C-alpha cells in the first residue's frame, strides 16, 4: 500500500519535473528572440506613443525639455491637408499597384511557364529590377526623367515635346506607379511562377483529354489554383505600398513630393518629424501610420487570408471549429447519400 503511493507520488514528481524543465527550456530558448522583439519592436512603439503626447524637439527628454500637449499632435496631424493628401496618395499607390501589377504578373508568369528558347534568361531579366537597390533605381530614373533628361531628349528627336514627368502634378503619380510596377513586377512574377509550378500536371492532362483549349485550361485550372498565391502577393504588395518611402524620397525629395502629388505617409512623417525637428509630432504621425497599416493588414488577414492561414495565424480554436463543421457536413452528406 505505502509502496504504491510512494511510487505514484514519485512518478507525479517526475512528471512535474519534466514539465518544469520543459517550461524552463522553452523560456531559455525563446528568450533571445523575445528580448530582441521587445527591445526593437514593442518598446519603440510604446516610446513612440509616449513621445507623441509631447511637443518635443528631440533634445533632452520629453518630460523635461518638451511640453505635454495630450492628443493635440494627433488632432493637428489628422487635420493637416498635407497629411490627408499623403494618406490619399498612399492608398492610390496601394490600389494602383494591385490593379496594374496583378494582371501583368499573371500574364508574364503564364508566358514564362511555357517552354521556349531563352526562357531562363528572360526569367532572370524580369527579376533584375527587383534586386537592384532602391537608391540606385531612384537616382537613375530621376536623372532620366528630368525635364531636360535623357527621355525627353529622345522624345525631342522624334519631335515630341516631353512633359515634366516628375514635377507636373497631373503626371507624377502615374510616373511613380509605372516605376513601382517596373521595379516590383519581377517579385510578383516569381511568386506566380512558383504557384503555377505547384499545380499538378495531371490536371492539365485530364483537361486536354476532355478537349479543353489553352485559355480554358488557364481559366478553369490555373487561376483558381493560383488564388492562394495571389492572395499572399496582394498582402505583401499592400504592406509594401503602405510603407513606400525610398523611391519617392530619392526621386522627388521631401518638398517637391508634396507639390507633385506623390508624397506618402512615410515621406510626410520624415519631413515633419525628422526634417522639421519635431520629434514629438513625428512620433504621433508614426503612430497614426502604424494604426492605419495595422487596420489594413488585420482586416485583410481576417477576411481574405484566413482560409490560407488556418491554424497558423488565426486561432487554433477557430480552425478546430471549422474542421468540426466540415466533418458534420460530411456526415450529413454521407447520410443523405445513403
Amino acid at each position, binding site marked *: 500500500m505505502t509502496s504504491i503511493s510512494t511510487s505514484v507520488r514519485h512518478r507525479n514528481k517526475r512528471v512535474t519535473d519534466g514539465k518544469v524543465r520543459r517550461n524552463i527550456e522553452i523560456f531559455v530558448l525563446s528568450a533571445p528572440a523575445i528580448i530582441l522583439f521587445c527591445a526593437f519592436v514593442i518598446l519603440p512603439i510604446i516610446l513612440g506613443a509616449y513621445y507623441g503626447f509631447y511637443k518635443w524637439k528631440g533634445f533632452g527628454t520629453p518630460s523635461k525639455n518638451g511640453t505635454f500637449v495630450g492628443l493635440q499632435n494627433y488632432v493637428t496631424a489628422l487635420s493637416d491637408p498635407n497629411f490627408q493628401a499623403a494618406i490619399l496618395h498612399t492608398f492610390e499607390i496601394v490600389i494602383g499597384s494591385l490593379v496594374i501589377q496583378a494582371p501583368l504578373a499573371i500574364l508574364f508568369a503564364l508566358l514564362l511557364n511555357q517552354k521556349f528558347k531563352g526562357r531562363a534568361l528572360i526569367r532572370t531579366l524580369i527579376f533584375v529590377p527587383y534586386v537592384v537597390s532602391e537608391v540606385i533605381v531612384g537616382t537613375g530614373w530621376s536623372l532620366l526623367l528630368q525635364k531636360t533628361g535623357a527621355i525627353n531628349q529622345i522624345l525631342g528627336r522624334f519631335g515630341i515635346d516631353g512633359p515634366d514627368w516628375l514635377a507636373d502634378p497631373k503626371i507624377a503619380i502615374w510616373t511613380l506607379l509605372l516605376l513601382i510596377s517596373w521595379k516590383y513586377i519581377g517579385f510578383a512574377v516569381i511568386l506566380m511562377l512558383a504557384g503555377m509550378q505547384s499545380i499538378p500536371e495531371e490536371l492539365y492532362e485530364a483537361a486536354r483529354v476532355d478537349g479543353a483549349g489553352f485559355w480554358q485550361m488557364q481559366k478553369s485550372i490555373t487561376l483558381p489554383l493560383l488564388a492562394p498565391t495571389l492572395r499572399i502577393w496582394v498582402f505583401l504588395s499592400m504592406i509594401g505600398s503602405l510603407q513606400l518611402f525610398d523611391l519617392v524620397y530619392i526621386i522627388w525629395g521631401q518638398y517637391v513630393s508634396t507639390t507633385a502629388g506623390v508624397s506618402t505617409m512615410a515621406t510626410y512623417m520624415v519631413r515633419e518629424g525628422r526634417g*522639421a525637428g519635431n520629434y514629438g509630432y513625428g512620433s504621433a504621425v508614426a503612430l497614426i501610420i502604424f494604426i492605419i497599416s495595422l487596420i489594413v493588414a488585420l482586416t485583410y488577414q481576417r477576411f481574405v487570408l484566413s482560409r490560407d492561414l488556418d491554424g497558423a495565424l488565426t486561432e487554433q480554436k477557430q480552425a478546430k471549429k471549422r474542421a468540426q463543421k466540415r466533418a458534420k457536413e460530411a456526415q450529413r452528406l454521407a447520410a443523405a447519400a445513403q
Partner: protein
Amino acid sequence: MKFKSIAAATLAVATLIGMAGCGNSNSANDDKTITFWHNASAGEGKQYWVDLAAAFEKKNPGVKVEIQAIQNEDYAGKLQTAMQDPASGPDVYMSLGGAKTKEMIDAGQTMDLTDKISSTVKSDMKTTLSAATFDSKVYGVPVSVEPGGIWYSKDLFERAGITETPTTFDQLKEDAQKLKDAGIAPIALGGKDAWPAAHWYYWLALRECSPSVYSKGTEKQDFSDKCWTRAGNDLKELADMDVFNEGYMTTTAQQGANSSAGLLANHKAAMELMGAWEPGVLKELTPDKKPMADLGFFAFPSVDGGKGEEGALMGGVTYFQVNPEAPDIAVDFVNFMAEKDNQEKYATAFSTIPASTAARGVVTDESLKAVLEYLNKSDSMQLWMDTTLGTNIGTALNSGVVNMLSGKGGAQDIVKAMQDAAAKG
C-alpha cells in the same frame, strides 16, 4: 539533455551581455582622448581635419584625437541621437547653429565656453562670435563665415551684352531677360532641395522689411507686416518670367553636373544665389575639377521701395561646440582651431572665408575677395532665416516657397505655413 539546456542558457546570457555591450559609450573615458565630429566627408576638407588633429597630437604628446567625418545629410540626426546622453556623445562637434544650438543649450548638451575661449578667439573672431553667442554666453568657436550673394559667370554675362552687375532687383530682372534672349538659362535653382529656392525669399524679405520688422519676424515669429507677402510676390514675379533653369523643381543643389551648381560650373546657366561655400562646390563640378575661371560675385540687389538696411548681409557661420562632459583638452582643441595658421589652412582647404579676421589675407580667389569687400563694409550679418527660425518653422517656410513656385498657393500662404507650423512643435 542537460548539456543542451546549459548551452542554451549560456547562449541566452551571452546575448544579454552582448546587447548590454551595445550601449557602451563611444567616447573614451580617459582625459587624453577626444572624439571629434565634423561633416567634411570628402576631399581637401576631410584631409584638413586629419592634418589638424595630427598637429594637435604632436603639440600635446599623449593626446589622441579620434575623428569621425559624417555625411552632411546624416549629421544632424546622428548628433542629436548621440547627444541624448552627453557621456556617449562626441567631445567636440560641428554646431547645427541657430535655434538648434539653443535647444542643445536648454538640454544641457553643450559647454559654456565664455571663460574658456582663448584671447585669440576673442580678438580675431569678434565679428563672427555673435553667431555662437546666446544670452551673452559663448558656446562655440567659429571657423568660417559664409555670406550669401549671387555668383555668376562673367563670360555668359558678356555674351548677353551685360557690362555691369545689377544693383537693383529691377536691373536683375532686365539682365535675366537679356540672358534669356541670348539663349542662356539666366538663373540656376536647385528647387528639389527647397532651401536654395527659399534663399531667394529670405533675401527679398531682408530687402523688403525694415530691420525692426525683420527681427520681429525671425525672433518673435510675427509675420503680420505686409513686407513678408511682398517678398513672396517679388519672387513670384521673377519665377513667372521663366528665368530659372528648365525643370528647376527637380534639380538638386550640389550633386553632379545636373545640379544647379553643376549648371553654373559648366556654363549651362549664368547665375546662382548661394552662400560663400559656392567656389568650393563649383571647383568639384567643373569639367577639369579646377576652380571656375570666370566666376564673379555681386551682392543681392536692393528692392525699389524696400525698407531693408542698405547692403545688409545674410549668411552662415560654421562653429564648433564642446560636450559639457568633455576633458579640458577638448577646449584646447577648439582654441587650437582658431589660431591664425590653422585658420589660413582651413580657408585654403575649404575655399572659403575664415572666421578669423587675422587669417583673411590668405583669400586669393577673386570672387571670394569680392565677398570679403562686402563683408568688411557691413558691420553685422544676419544668419540664414531658416537657421534663426529653427527647423520647424524653417521647414514650413521652405516648403511654402516651393509650393508657391509650383503654383500651389501664393505669397500669403508662405506666411500662413509658418504660422501653422507653430502647432507642430
